[in-house]
């Protein structure tokens, strides 16, 4: 089951660049939340702060609190533990090229010491089914490399890999931006089905996509969260002039 995310006073820097300023935000459990905004507005940095990937860059710095359920992720636990509970799907499909499809899905569990083969088989199948990839790859599970399938399939493989460790939250950083429209539709379909079980945060440049999959939408601009509201409200009757300018395309 998914959990909600509570963000307070979040500030982030890359070197001396202040990329996120005083973000306050409550992301509801078991819903899809979309984050939109122009390039460089901080939305990617924001999701990377939610699973502490931001700090893997040596020049990055972050302050403030992020709570996943009751867990204060910057004070209570190590980043490694947090990343197991918060899965991430990146902009470009990044399967492990030297691993088979099966090994890719099993990697998260195996690399954390999980060895039960029978249980692994079941988890791999279930994860691939959830990612709507099972039927396409079930005959080549161990024979084909994760890098040998198409881009859209690779991205669903990465989703399956993230689901296999059974996270509570799924962060997606422009998951469909490198894919063609058919693959994109499949990913959106997937998000639609997955959100009953996971809390989903999706960064997107595609506003129609945000409107299609998300109940809530946040608009970022210059490192600030300008507006956060129900998706229908954001797209039909935004309260902030800047949001309106952006979604109507008047934005410079």
């Amino acid at each position, binding site marked *: 089951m998914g959990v909600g995310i509570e963000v307070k006073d979040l500030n982030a820097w890359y070197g001396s660049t202040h990329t996120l300023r005083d973000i306050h935000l409550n992301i509801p459990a078991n819903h899809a939340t979309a984050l939109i905004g122009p390039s460089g507005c901080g939305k990617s940095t924001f999701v990377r702060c939610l699973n502490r*990937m931001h700090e893997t860059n040596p020049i990055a710095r972050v302050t403030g609190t992020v709570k996943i359920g009751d867990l204060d992720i910057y004070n209570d636990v190590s980043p490694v*533990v947090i990343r197991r509970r918060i899965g*991430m799907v990146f902009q470009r499909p990044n399967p492990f*090229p030297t*691993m088979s499809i099966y090994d890719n899905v099993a990697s998260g569990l195996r690399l954390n010491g999980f060895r039960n083969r029978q249980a692994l088989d079941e988890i791999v199948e279930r994860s691939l089914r959830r990612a709507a990839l099972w039927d396409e790859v079930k005959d080549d599970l161990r024979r084909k490399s994760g890098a*040998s399938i198409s881009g859209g399939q690779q991205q669903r493989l990465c989703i399956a890999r993230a689901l296999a460790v059974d996270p509570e939250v799924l962060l997606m950083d422009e998951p469909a931006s490198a894919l063609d429209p058919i693959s994109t539709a499949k990913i959106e379909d997937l998000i639609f089905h997955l959100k009953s079980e996971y809390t989903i945060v999706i960064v997107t440049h595609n506003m129609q996509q945000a409107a299609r999959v998300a109940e809530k939408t946040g608009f970022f601009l210059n490192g600030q969260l300008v507006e956060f509201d129900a998706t229908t409200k954001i797209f039909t009757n935004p309260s902030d002039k800047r949001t309106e300018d952006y979604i109507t395309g008047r934005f410079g």
Partner: protein
Amino acid sequence: MQQRIQQSGQAWRRWKNHLATGTAVLGTLVVVAPLLAIFAYLIYKGASSLNWAFFTKVPKPVGEIGGGMENAIVGSGVLLTVASLIGIPIGIAAGVYLAEFGRKRLLSNLVRFTADVLNGVPSIVMGIAVYSLIVVPQQHFSAFSGGVALGIMMIPTVTRTTEEMLLLVPHAVREAALGLGVPNWRSTVSITLRTASAGIITGCMLAFARVAGETAPLLFTAFGNDDKSLALNQPIAALPLQIFVYAVSPYNDWHRLAWAGSLVLIFLIVISVSLVRYVTSRGVLKGAS
């Protein structure tokens, strides 16, 4: 008119294409020719002296016919095993440090510089260094000291190729591992190193093949031994060493054995490199890059 211009343009383009292809083929031939020539000459000179005894008998005293180089073949095996056990782990560990943990640190620049200089140190100097560090204190020549000398010579090649290969692994692959909640060390060992493994193995094989033919560092470390020996604390024979001694000797019989030894040395290198490649590539999947 226009069509004629197009046609002449096309002919010129074809001609350029042939020229470029021809140059590439010529270059390939020039590269391959010396290797084939060496092989052919070695087979011509050495094959006639190859027989079963060559692999199963130790050298006989001067004047007696027959005898082989079993001592040297076994000796080279022992020396290269010791060298690989020293050179490969240290080399890979240093390469991992340079690529993954020590980027832009003073120490890593120092390590990189040292590795490059070490690569250029003449092998005879390596022999003297190990001689004074190990042989002199122990007061005897030994297989171990020879293995150490060769192992140190392997380190720079292994280190630098490991670093280069790790840097070729896309950042996205590392992020994928970290994003799954895999600890950094585990991600380095099981993901980054694994992704780069093909290139790293090539580097190790290069280093291995290079030191397999080294003579100078063994002159006063392994020293040579006319009997078969597996003991690490005893002098031991090595193919290059034996070839050197036999080739500069005044006896025709020994000259022929030296040729046979050279042939065997080359083939053993080719076989061991191919074997490692075969074994490590068996797990490779369809379409893996």
